């Protein structure tokens, strides 16, 4: 651990901030899941269709978190 410098510390902080996009993506996914539960409660016979849509929507909402993760990895491994 002799290569620790201020620059490296700043990069680590920047990576942590980039990963914080996960907060909002999680809120969005949780909202989608709550709505899906509601929808299944209203009409249980559409169960499988709702599941497909939920997974699709959750996967798309995950995109922002993935971008944040990608940027964090770029910050850590490239610089």
């Amino acid at each position: 651990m002799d290569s620790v410098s201020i620059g490296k510390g700043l990069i680590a902080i920047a990576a942590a901030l980039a990963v914080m996009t996960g907060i909002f993506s999680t809120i969005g996914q949780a909202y989608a899941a709550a709505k899906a539960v509601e929808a299944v409660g209203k009409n249980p016979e559409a169960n499988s269709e709702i599941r497909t849509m939920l997974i699709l929507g959750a996967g798309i909402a995950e995109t922002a978190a993935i971008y944040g993760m990608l940027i964090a990895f770029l910050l850590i491994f490239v610089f």
Partner: protein
Amino acid sequence: MWKSEQLSILIISIALASLFWWLKGRLMKLEPGKTPTGVVFLVVLYVRTIHNFVEASMGKKRAPLLSAYIGFVFLYLIISNYSGLIGLKPPTANWSVTFTFALITFVWIQVAKIKVNGVKGYLKSFFEPIAPFVIPNLFGTFAPLISMSLRLFGNVISGTIILNLVYSFTGWVSGLLPVVGKFNFLSLIVAPWIHIYFDLFSGFLQAFIFISLTSIFIAIEYQDEEVNYG
């Protein structure tokens, strides 16, 4: 020296090509009216499933053309994403692979737009509703190219990197033991669960999202036509 991604792209492409070649021979022997068995049955089932999936969003008229592309892309992405399980580096962990697929989708969307609106209407659609909107319209045109490729690439690369970190960490921890430390036994307990999430679940999900978005984006362009001509 080759990067390992290029090697696995080559391996998977050759494997898929020989698989298709072999299946073509099997499919040629299929007699109409007879129930297919074994591998041929699976192939027919797969084609049928993809066809139904595309038809649900595209309508009957356009479905055959697109379902061939969708079926191949889904097979390739699934095999690429799962190739991390047998020790290859997934080809989709290389941006050029995902970008190529996104580029094909992008070109297809533009071609569909031109086919429906005509060249003049296509160019005019950038300046709607008023001329200054050309900048957001251009961004909107190129956004699917970036977002579709980066979504798949980011998911696969993050899984690969996290698994690398897990393997090196478990190797370091088990290296603390004196004699048996050379063998990374801790990864046998920890890694499979992460493989299940990142390779099996995420890989399938991202491949599915890719083909869904492709068919939806292209179907949107043809939608007006469907309304007009029934």
